[in-house]
Every structure is written in C-alpha cells, then in structure tokens.
C-alpha cells in the first residue's frame, strides 16, 4: 500500500498557492463537467449563431438604413457578442446557488483557496465559452462580408472578458446575497438584464429613440462597452469611444470584485 509514503509527504500548505493558480483551478473545475458533455458545448456555441441568423436579416430589412455607418453586420455583430457575454456571465450565480444548497461551496470556503479567486474563477468559467462563441460568430460571419479589423477583434475580446468577469462577479454576489430565497436571483437578474440590454443600443439603434431613452442610455455602462466593441471591430483602435468602453469595463470589473468579495466575506460573518 502506498498510503503511508504518500501521506507522509503531504504538504501542510503553509505557503499560499498563487492567486492565478487558484482562479485557474476554480475555473477548470467548473468547466470540466461542461466540457465532458459534448452536446452542451455544441449547443452553447451554436446559440448566438441562431440568434444572429434569425435576427440579422430582419434587422437589415427594417433598420438597415438607420444604422450608423450603414453596414448592418459591422454594427450588429459586436452587439451580439456583448449580449452573449451579458447573458452568459450574468448566470454565474445560478450554479453557485445550487452548490450553496448542497455544501460544495462551503467545502471550498474552508480550503486555502483565495476567496477572490473563487469569485473570478467562477466568472471565468462563464466567460470562457463566451470567448469561444464570439470567435465562432466572427468566423462564421466572414463569408457574409463581415470584415472586422483583426487586432480590433482581439482587443474587443479582451474588453469583453474584463467586462464579463465584472458581470460574473456581480452575479456571484447576488447569489450569495439572496441565498435564502433563490427565486430572487432570477427575479433580479431578469429585471436588470432587459433594461440594460435595450438601453445599450445593442440590438436596435438608440439614435431613433426618444430623448429620455438616450439620457438613460448615457448612464448605462453597457452602452460604452457596446460602442467600444463597434469601434474596435471597425479598426478605430485609438478612439475616445474605445477609451470610454475600457473605462466602463474596468469599472464594472472593479465594482464586481469589490462587491463580490465583500458579500462573500460578509456571508461568513
């Protein structure tokens, strides 16, 4: 039996692992069941394509002329990517809710895993497929005359990832805050999702909307991210729009982490 020799050498782990190592471990732990299920992977990847295929042609017909710049796909595809990010990462807390009820979350809280790494790891788990989906969408759209700036796409994905981790962390915090009544999670998530979505000009141009809508949209961080993505995809890399988008994404991420870590440590108080 190997038991004595191995357990003899078990480290007492007096020194912390790296924070990135912890976050990576949490993310891969969460991703493993998804990756083991090929159906869910394929289904998840195809989803935004279905949306794009059904919505795009309608959009081209109805608002094609009013789209700024006139190129429907260049305007629409970045919007879809941000939407996919928002939908994907805002459900981060749902899986956590389940693990809080069973005891898996509690088990991980007692380990030396850094708590902020648990937060970011879980958000990253939702973000990873979004990045894959986004790449696929871009690739599929290329034959349809969609010609984004390659460097812009790359920068756009980084921006999405930063924003997505922020949204994911907020979703995580929400799950912890409402853990006694889990229906609240979906109520809040859905209530926030659609106004944010519509007021970002993601699917329909805000330019044709009433004045109050445009004012409300100015206060919506998502709007700056959407605009920045469009600018990046158009190759407008060094514009103020991109800078504002980066600020909005960074603020979302910072807010998510602060709120997330605070909610988490308050829950063990």
């Amino acid at each position: 039996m190997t038991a004595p020799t191995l357990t003899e050498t078990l480290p007492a782990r007096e020194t912390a692992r790296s924070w990135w190592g912890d976050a990576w471990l949490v993310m891969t732990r969460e991703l493993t069941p998804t990756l083991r299920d090929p159906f869910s992977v394929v289904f998840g990847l195809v989803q935004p394509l279905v949306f794009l295929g059904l919505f795009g042609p309608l959009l081209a017909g109805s608002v094609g002329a009013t789209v700024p710049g006139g190129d429907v796909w260049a305007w629409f595809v970045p919007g879809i990517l941000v939407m996919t990010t928002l939908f994907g990462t805002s459900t981060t807390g749902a899986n956590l809710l389940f693990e809080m009820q069973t005891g898996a979350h509690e088990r991980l809280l007692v380990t030396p895993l850094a708590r902020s790494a648990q937060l970011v790891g879980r958000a990253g788990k939702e973000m990873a497929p979004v990045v894959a989906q986004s790449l696929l969408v871009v690739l599929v759209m290329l034959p349809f005359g969609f010609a984004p700036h390659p460097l812009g796409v790359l920068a756009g994905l980084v921006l999405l990832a930063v924003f997505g981790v922020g949204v994911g962390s907020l979703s995580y915090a929400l799950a912890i805050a409402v853990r006694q009544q889990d229906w609240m999670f979906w109520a809040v998530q859905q209530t926030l999702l659609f106004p944010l979505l519509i007021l970002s000009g993601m699917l329909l141009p805000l330019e044709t909307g009433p004045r109050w809508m445009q004012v409300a949209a100015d206060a919506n961080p998502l709007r700056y991210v959407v605009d920045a993505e469009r600018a990046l995809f158009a190759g407008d890399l060094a514009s103020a729009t991109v800078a504002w988008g980066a600020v909005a994404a960074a603020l979302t991420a910072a807010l998510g982490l602060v709120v997330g870590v605070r909610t988490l440590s308050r829950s063990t108080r």
Partner: protein
Amino acid sequence: MIRTTGLTKDFTAKSGTVHAVRGIDLEVAPGELVAVLGPNGAGKTTTIRMLTTLTAPTSGTAQVAGADIAREPGTVRRRIGYVGQGNGAGHAQRAVDELVVQGVVYGLDRRDARRRAAELMTQLDLDGLATRKVSDLSGGQRRRLDVALGLVHAPRLLFLDEPSTGLDPHNRANLWEHVLRLRQEHDMTVLLTTHYLDEADAMAERVVVVDDGRVIADDTATALKHTLAGDRVRLAAADPADLPVLAAVVGGVPGARDVAVAGDEVEARVADAPTALPVALAEAAARGVRVVRAEGRQPTLDDVFLSLTGRSLREEGAARAEAPETAEVAA
C-alpha cells in the same frame, strides 16, 4: 489544538433572535478524538462552522490549530480538514475529479493528487465509482466521498459533522477504521458530531454533550455513564400485592438506590447489574415473591442524556410513549 472561551452565536431570524450557541468553553488536546452529542438544533453544526471560519461568533474567541479564528482565518483553513453536514462534492462533477481538485488545492501536484484520490477511493470503498457523476452516486457513496474529500490532505485537525449519517453498518465500520488509522499515523485530532450513540461510545475517548447551545457534560463515555446513569435492574412481580416486598428486596442488593415502583415493576440503580440480578432473584424467591420478568441493563449514552435533561436523545416521541413520567419533565 482547540480552545474556545465563551463562544456564542445568535442568529437574527424574522421570528426573533435564535440563540444557537450560548457560551461554549471547550478544550481539545492534540491527538484527542472528541464526539459531540446533542439533539437536533442543539448548536453542534453552528459550533463547528464557527471553528472552521465559516461563520463568525457573535462573541467569544477560539484558537484552532494554533491560530485565532477571527484574526487568522487563513491560517486556520490551511491547517484543518472539514466534512460538513451537507454534501461537499459538486453534483455535476465526477467523483475522482473532485478528489483531485481538492488535492491540488492543498498543494499536491496533479500526479500525486491522482494517486491520493485512488488511494482514498479504495480505502473508503468507492472503487469503480471514480468516473461516476456525483449526482449518480447513492447517498451513502456520496457521504463516503465527502469524507474522502476531508481526508485528502491528511489534516492534523479534522472536523466531521455527522460523517456516518446515511451509511450502512459495514461502511460505518470502514469509515471509522480509516479515520482511526489516519489518526494514529498522523496524530490527527478529530472533533466529530454524531447521532449514533453507540458510535460515540465506542470511538471517542471523550464525549461532549450539548443541549440548547450549552455544554451540559464533558467526560469519557465510561465516566459519564457511571456517574450520570449507572447500571439498572428491573423486576416485575406476578402479584401487584408483592411489589412492596420486591422493592425491599431490590433495595437490599449491593449499591442499590433510586428504587421506584412503576406499573407491575420495580426499578433501581445498582452498582453492577449482571451480579445484582441473580442476588435479587434468589432473595425474592426466598421471600415467596414470584418474579415474572427480570432485566439487568448497563447504561447507554442515551441514559446519560436522559438523566441530564429528562429527555431522550433517541426519538423523543418514542421516549414519551415508553416513559410518560419523563415526558412530563421535558414539557
């Protein structure tokens, strides 16, 4: 290894404040195996959750594995193992994956973590279930996996919250064998809760009885049983008219006290039931009392709890049906 002073936890619920733990002072020396017993809601889980940094005490302090739970929670977490009352393995995960991740969390590299996982699966009778999804395991298999997760890093201090609940006798025995062996090999300190009284009796050299958030007894199982319950004999007379004589007979055996008549029976505490019973029977026969039933009983931890609180730790309903007079005390 553990030292608490005045550990207290209040929860504020809608219906008012719940005093879950009301000032617990507990000291556990390195290498000890301590069983915490108590009815549902006594505050066992809440106490363990405070000691494992999952919830902060309302007041009081605790040193766990050489660190303060409030000031150095990270150090505490690095040094302890914890098996909670719930299921620690993620339901969507495969059993072996959870064990490997747990090993990596505690600093093993993947290869060692896989070896350690395989070893634990064998020891806890989980062979062949490695690639099974956790949600597809039986309750008992899942529980064994939970325990394996707590043992991955062979912690010096292990908390087990009802580890054996839901296990069949064979696997309960396996579990304890493994815990006891690890404890010997690594000088592991164990604090566990259980509802199985026989288990606490057989495993732990020390039993802490908790009721309503307080420690109401703390000693070895033998000492508790001896001082708080003691051996008992019970004899039933064929003719109720003989009961006073029978009571006198029972009162005369060595160490007899608390002689009581209930129904057609005489009951009493004695020094040693197996030797007291024949003496009482012979004396009763000599005095012409016909005894129709006789029973000698050595105390269980349930008797200890009963004598401490007037309630039974076994099902309270059953206790009430058996002994209406004790139910009155409880009410």
